[in-house]
């Protein structure tokens, strides 16, 4: 990623940078080099993600439903950027998670138009169940898989483990070795998907970071008309869709035996046909552009005796190694598929006819399968086609972004050379690039666990008012609370001025005793747990982005159940834990379902949201909590749009509607208020059930403000009534700080003018958007005041 910060800065700067070049990118006039193209081409200097976006822009898909995940996020960002400047009109739909993005794409594809998506890794896994449905119901679309590791512990870097999950989904899969291929395959993919003989969704797979984020010179069609001529202005006619009232259809019926196997057979047939159709399309494309994509990319294989099989970016690096070995007189060659579904079995067997030994590198393991998916499919190809002589060596390499250097390629060839010589494979399957570690560096505990008596200070007094049923809390001056140790160590990698940890630590001051935390994926998680270190002094859990509330409810119930069975008696626990789930506003989008589920089950736990108004960890994309008009990397400011189009999500009210015992809002600008609410949260989570709280948390970087401005920015957000401080305790709403009553209320513009992400809203031409935002803030504030005044509301 460059998920993060750099990319967001770069993007912001790029907005101006690229725009001024009069278009998406600057073309280079190297026309003399573009020899054999029949239609006019141009050179650009861009990355794989930019090329995927550029192809989509030229095709002008109807709909893209997407959800940010590194390293594919940029595809949607670039499309938002070019949409903002009016270069295409693809309907970009920011979904609430990949499951939804795949759902949006599915729905859109039933309705007959052209559909596009891009995702990676865990995002792909989250949408996985939609994939065989898309193919099984034979609805074409194109999706880019920007390959990244599937993992826990979380790895955001590149390998093919996500791709390997795609092998059984019924999608033809095109492979991209470099940004040029990303562009070309994206154009061919649509034609392949829509071919009447195929009618399957097609995946375009490129290597995360190695290809997605590296800029290269890439040839493209100069004119989108030529692209459209190639793919067709419209999808082929004659296929039913859901928008024709005269020809109603039923999609996705209930189908059991004896019919289902026939549906699968049709799909299987279509898939194998896709191999031949791809060859036809690739030839047509090559004749048009001069860029040919044979089914197999064979490099110096004519007389090769030893070979290496790799996919995508590494398969380019190996060609340099082949050249070096050839210079030494070794008959080396490399082989790499441009399409792996359907698997080019016959072509591979053919290419290896005279090869004595081949090393197959799989950038993803099929754990327990004695090799990755590719080596086993390659062996099956040899067996099926009667080749019993070629020695095959299997190595798992390059996992989780581990780089593949030319020297690694030499090692792979060395293995093949040895096998060719000896006629046998010494170690048929192994990992390559793993290492044992230094035995004297075994982890030892560094810090003693926090002392219970330091955490259970008695500084915070809390009791229940029997009359009102509400809690009374007494909190000492903040100075006294400094005595309580912080729950996290310094040394985390958050940006300067980040508001997350100051807010969290203030909240934790209100909790007495031990805490077990679960952090959703997001900035706070990533910067505090970079292996092998962590900033968490107490017990900490991370699970999937969206699944924290469910996960922590499991921990909570296991705690109570094991305690009830007496299994924790030996641990000397002095008190019950307080269970706290920490999430960003992004985690509350994708994890809204599990959060509501946990709330409705009313587990004794706290869900604490730090809301910084965007997906800052992946480079500042819009979240549903991003307010209207605010600029993010997927809600740009330009000719055709002025920031986010819809209003911010009112998560506290959504959670209050689940009738949990306690809901609150807070900021670090009102520390006493926040600590009091934390104390109540602690009590309710110990005694009654689920608590939800939202802390507005400044992100100076992506709010485009000074590093030192965070506290005062969230303070002004409160004073402008954008972010009212209140609580809903046992269903009764109380405003805990009323800027009107304190004569502190300021205009919303006082807040907006201090952030680069909102300054455009003060321009006269954006008056209507500003007014709409002001009205919404005022409407929500007024309603809150009425609730405050009427306990029964």
């Amino acid at each position: 990623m460059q998920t993060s910060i750099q990319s967001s800065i770069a993007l912001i700067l790029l907005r101006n940078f690229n725009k001024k070049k009069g278009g998406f990118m600057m073309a280079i006039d190297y026309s003399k080099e573009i020899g054999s193209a029949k239609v006019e081409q141009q050179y650009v200097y861009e990355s794989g993600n930019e090329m995927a976006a550029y192809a989509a822009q030229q095709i002008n898909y109807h709909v893209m439903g997407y959800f940010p995940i590194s390293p594919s996020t940029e595809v949607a960002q670039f499309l938002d950027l070019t949409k903002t400047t009016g270069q295409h009109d693809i309907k970009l739909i920011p979904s609430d998670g990949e499951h939804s993005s795949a759902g949006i794409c599915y729905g859109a594809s039933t309705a007959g138009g052209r559909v596009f998506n891009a995702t990676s890794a865990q995002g792909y896994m989250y949408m996985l169940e939609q994939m065989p449905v898309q193919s099984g119901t034979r609805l074409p679309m194109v999706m880019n898989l920007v390959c990244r590791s599937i993992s826990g512990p979380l790895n955001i870097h590149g390998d093919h483990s996500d791709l390997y999950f795609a092998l059984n989904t019924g999608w033809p899969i095109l492979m991209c070795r470099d940004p040029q291929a990303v562009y070309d395959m994206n154009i061919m993919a649509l034609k392949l998907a829509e071919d009447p003989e195929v009618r399957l969704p097609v995946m375009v797979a490129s290597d995360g970071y190695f290809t997605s984020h590296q800029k290269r010179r890439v040839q493209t069609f100069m004119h989108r008309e030529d692209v459209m001529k190639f793919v067709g202005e419209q999808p082929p006619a004659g296929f039913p869709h859901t928008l024709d009232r005269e020809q109603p259809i039923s999609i996705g019926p209930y189908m059991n035996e004896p019919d289902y196997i026939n549906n699968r057979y049709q799909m299987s047939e279509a898939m194998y046909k896709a191999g031949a159709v791809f060859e036809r399309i690739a030839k047509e494309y090559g004749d048009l552009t001069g860029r040919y994509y044979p089914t197999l990319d064979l490099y110096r294989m004519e007389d090769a005796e030893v070979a290496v099989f790799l996919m995508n970016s590494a398969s380019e690096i190996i060609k340099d190694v082949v050249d070096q070995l050839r210079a030494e007189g070794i008959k080396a060659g490399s082989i790499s598929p441009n399409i792996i579904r359907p698997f080019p079995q016959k072509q591979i067997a053919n290419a290896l006819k005279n090869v004595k030994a081949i090393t197959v590198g799989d950038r993803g393991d099929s754990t327990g399968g004695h090799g990755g998916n590719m080596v086993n499919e390659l062996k099956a190809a040899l067996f099926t086609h009667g080749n019993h002589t070629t020695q095959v060596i299997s190595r798992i390499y390059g996992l989780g972004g581990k780089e593949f250097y030319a020297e690694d390629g030499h090692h792979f060839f060395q293995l093949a050379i040895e096998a060719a010589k000896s006629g046998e494979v010494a170690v048929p399957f192994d990992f390559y690039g793993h290492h044992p570690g230094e035995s004297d560096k075994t982890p030892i505990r560094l810090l003693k666990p926090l002392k219970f008596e330091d955490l259970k200070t008695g500084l915070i007094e809390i009791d229940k008012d029997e009359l009102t049923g509400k809690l009374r809390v007494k909190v000492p001056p903040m100075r006294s609370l400094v005595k309580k140790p912080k729950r996290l160590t310094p040394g985390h990698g958050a940006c300067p001025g980040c508001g997350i940890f100051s807010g969290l630590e203030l909240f934790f001051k209100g909790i007495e005793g031990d805490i077990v935390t679960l952090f959703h994926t997001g900035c706070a998680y990533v910067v505090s747990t970079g292996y092998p270190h962590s900033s968490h002094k107490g017990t900490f859990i991370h699970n999937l982005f969206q699944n924290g509330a469910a996960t922590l409810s499991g921990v909570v119930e296991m705690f109570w159940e094991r305690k009830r069975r007496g299994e924790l008696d030996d641990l000397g626990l002095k008190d019950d834990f307080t269970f706290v789930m920490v999430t960003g506003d992004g985690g509350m989008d994708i994890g809204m379902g599990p959060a509501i589920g946990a709330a409705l089950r009313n587990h004794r736990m706290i869900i604490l949201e730090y809301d910084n108004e965007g997906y800052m960890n992946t480079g500042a994309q819009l979240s549903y909590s991003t307010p209207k008009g605010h600029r993010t990397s997927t809600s740009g400011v330009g000719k055709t749009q002025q920031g986010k189009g819809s209003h911010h999500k009112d998560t506290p009210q959504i959670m209050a509607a689940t009738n949990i015992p306690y809901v609150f809002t807070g900021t670090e600008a009102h520390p006493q208020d926040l600590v009091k609410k934390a104390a109540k949260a602690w009590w309710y989570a110990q005694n009654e059930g689920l608590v939800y709280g939202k802390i507005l948390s400044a992100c100076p970087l992506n709010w485009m403000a000074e590093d030192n401005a965070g506290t005062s920015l969230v303070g002004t957000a409160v004073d402008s009534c954008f972010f009212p401080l209140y609580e809903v305790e046992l269903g009764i709403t109380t405003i805990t700080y009323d800027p009107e009553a304190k004569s502190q209320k300021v205009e919303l513009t006082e807040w907006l003018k201090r952030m680069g992400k909102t300054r455009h809203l003060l321009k006269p031409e954006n008056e209507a958007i500003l007014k709409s935002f002001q009205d919404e803030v005022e409407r929500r504030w007024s309603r809150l005041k009425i609730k405050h005044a009427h306990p029964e509301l």
Partner: protein
Amino acid sequence: MGGLPLVNKLGFYEIRLEAIGGMGANLAGKMLAEAGVNGSGLNGVSFSSYGSEKKGSPVKAHIRFCELTTQIRDTSSVEHPHMVGIFHEALAKTVHVTSGIGPDSIVLVNSTKAPSQLMALLDMQGGKIAAIDATGIALKEKNRVNMAMLGALFKICPFLDPQAMKDIVTKSLGAKYPQAIESAHRTFDRGYEEVVFEQFTLEDNGPLLDFKHSNISSLGYENQPIGGMITNPGGNYLKDLSISRSGMIPSYDPESCINCAGCDNVCPDMCFVWEERTDRKGRSQIFLQGIDYQYCKGCLKCVQACPTSALSSIKEKEGYADKYSVKHRFDLAAQF
């Protein structure tokens, strides 16, 4: 402009930029690469280090240039750069910024120090060192460090056309910030003009430094706890974040401190160190002892929060943080 002065065996002139997230090295790398590819008739590839590194964390940008006819296949990081551009001198404290340089490499450092001092700082045995006070120029010209660094980088890369770069600046700032063009150009020019070089002879022509891949960890499959679990949490306290500061630092004056904890409430990095002792009336109280600058990223939120003049922001002078740092006392489980 001429051809590439040096190339490796695959035909590449390789550049690595070492910086802190937020300094604009990513953008500088991008502009540098585009100036080569779009403006100087070269082929090239460029990328930045990827990850969840936040602003203030060490980052790298990698650029490879070659002739138009050279095949680009290598997508791995630049490990043996012909030029290293170090945007922040203090990076050398925690990052092996000169990793993989050879006898012909040039190391450019943003620094007020002379090349000979830098050679000692970077622990180099010899070679070519260039120095430019990019921060000073940027402050003076009210522009960005990356622009001054770019100027110096262009001077070192005679095959790049500085005019092409300035045209890119003009175009990209163009309509929106025309007032910024002049200062950007001036900053670039000063970087170009003011960079100084020195060549130090390398004894016995050996390697400048031992090279090893930077991606090897001391924990491996034999000693990494299974499941990726961290069994010794809290270890982030070992990190030194002082390189995240970009010039300013909070200064603490205990005389005017009222111990309100306002600073502690807002500090994102747990930098404030407190102690319990008796006050003048003999009551046990909490007092602010000082700041542990090892973790201070220089955001200065604390200065904003301080209701008195106890905290103020000052320009960080060399040695200040070490001198005035009050260290956290961690409750260690093991003796080291």
